[in-house]
């Protein structure tokens, strides 16, 4: 627990009345360890610690009567600055909006697509789930089952090439008054140029309102490269972090924010259709810092 560890470091202060540089160094080291253990990328952790050191100096922390609390507040603010705020799904009225979900294999795209459809439906939108994974065994069956089990509409035609399928889906949306098409794409690696080019082609062929990167909260240091890699091929408009109900501390969220600057829109907190929460920076900070 960071707070307890900092209080231990600063306990000796009582007898001296003022913190030494050694005390400050130890507290910064403690913060660095906390961030690294929370899967914050080591480059970002270094930057956060430097900023905390700078701000602590500005606030004359050596003379503080409550240095542990004060340094934690500084740390919280630094992390919150990186996290930014929640942001709604950008849906324009009176048009066929497209929302595309992309990400690594197994990150939770298909499940999240269904969760988003329910969320949007409850907001009065008319969502249509569009399966867009032509490779994984039973990928379409999975999305169709999720739709049927939860009273959601799904486009069930997947014959022809991917671009043709989307054109047909858009026509279907037009004829049936759907205003949001949720494209559930196949899992892919950001380092696989062929599949990333396929994604770029879709992004360039159609007007996509939201392109959301779906990331697994259990990802470690690699999150930085992954977010960067996806950003190079498609214009991301936001991120969704899944499996947040695990004990993962979610430091990878900072990597996504740092590299893309785009908002984290939702957090997946379970396998059920309602297990989708709107991003709350305070909740994320406390999980990272413990």
């Amino acid at each position, binding site marked *: 627990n960071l707070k307890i560890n900092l209080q231990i470091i600063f306990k000796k202060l009582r007898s001296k009345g003022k913190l030494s540089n050694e005390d400050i160094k130890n507290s910064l080291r403690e913060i*660095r*360890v906390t961030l*690294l*253990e*929370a*899967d914050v990328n*080591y480059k970002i952790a270094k930057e956060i610690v430097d900023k905390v050191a700078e701000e602590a100096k500005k606030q004359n922390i050596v003379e503080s009567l409550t240095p542990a609390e004060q340094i934690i507040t500084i740390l919280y603010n630094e992390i919150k600055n990186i996290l930014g705020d929640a942001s709604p799904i950008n849906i324009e009225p009176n048009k066929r909006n497209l929302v595309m979900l992309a990400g*690594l*294999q*197994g*990150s*939770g795209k298909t499940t999240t697509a269904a969760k988003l459809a329910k969320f949007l439906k409850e907001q009065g939108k008319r969502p249509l789930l569009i399966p867009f994974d032509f*490779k*994984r*065994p*039973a990928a379409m*069956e*999975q*999305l*169709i*089952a*999720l739709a049927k*089990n939860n009273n959601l509409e799904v486009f069930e035609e997947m014959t022809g090439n991917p671009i043709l399928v989307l054109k047909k889906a858009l026509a279907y949306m037009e004829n049936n008054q759907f205003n949001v098409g949720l494209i559930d794409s196949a899992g892919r*690696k*950001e*380092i696989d140029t062929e599949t990333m080019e396929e994604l770029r082609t879709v992004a360039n062929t159609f007007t996509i309102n939201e392109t959301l990167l779906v990331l*697994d*909260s*259990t*990802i*470690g*240091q*690699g999150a930085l*490269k*992954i977010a960067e*890699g996806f950003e190079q091929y498609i214009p991301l408009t936001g991120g969704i972090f899944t*499996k947040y*109900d*695990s*004990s*993962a*501390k979610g*430091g*990878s969220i900072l990597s996504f924010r740092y590299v893309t600057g785009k908002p984290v829109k939702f957090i997946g907190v379970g*396998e059920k259709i309602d297990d989708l929460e709107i991003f709350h920076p305070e909740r994320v900070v406390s999980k990272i810092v413990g």
Partner: protein
Amino acid sequence: KKIFEKNDSNSIENIEEFMLENNFGVEFAENFIEKIREERVTDKNIEETLKESIKNILDNTDPKIHFANSIPAVFLFVGTNGTGKTTSIAKLAHLYKNQGKKVMLVAGDTFRAAASKQLEIWATKLNIPIVMQKEGSDPGAVVFDGLNSAVSKNIDILLIDSAGRVETKKNLLKELQKIERVIEKKIGRKPDETLLVLDAYTGQNGLAQIEIFSSMVNISGIILTKIDGSSSGGIIIPIVQKYGIPVKFICTGENIEDIEQFNTEAFIKMLSG
């Protein structure tokens, strides 16, 4: 990131960055740095020392699969959601079938949408039998069915799929214990292998996964998946060091042939770029 990518003027800083970037964790990194300071390792020997440490950790475990003297050999696949359990089962089934073994699959994930269907498609492609029940059935019941069928059909190897689950869900871990008990009751011993399928991109949460899963069921080995991605799977280093559980297989892609027996030298080679 390759070990020798930066200039060697600050080798300790470089090796620390290497360890952190590859998810070895801050505890492992600090211990290693303390070691090279105590042993007064010179800059040009730091990388070799790390490779040696890694080799010792990995070679201290036995990556071989253990078959009992009776058939069917029973392998249970467990792990967090989306790590590659179902796909890994198909790959191992293919591997063993090519070795002339009679393989059968059990669709033990009765929870997730189209989970059984996904494994059924693999069974059909491989032309091997599969036991499944409808979605929502009790997983213990499907496993029991599978065991009976495997015994009556003289199956050599029975591969059992289970639903993904996060380590924070105690009730789901208890469900796994129940599945282990069903198997033990039927064949008179625990599963020959209970393999935790671990995603190579995983960070420090990998340690929690191993810690908690192995506290509830006997984990005999790890299958490391998605090593073909941009992550080295370095989290296995602190895991193997701390828990002594061997990595038995490594998966390198989405196709049926993309699996190999774990090999320390090959892994270290991949790690050091």
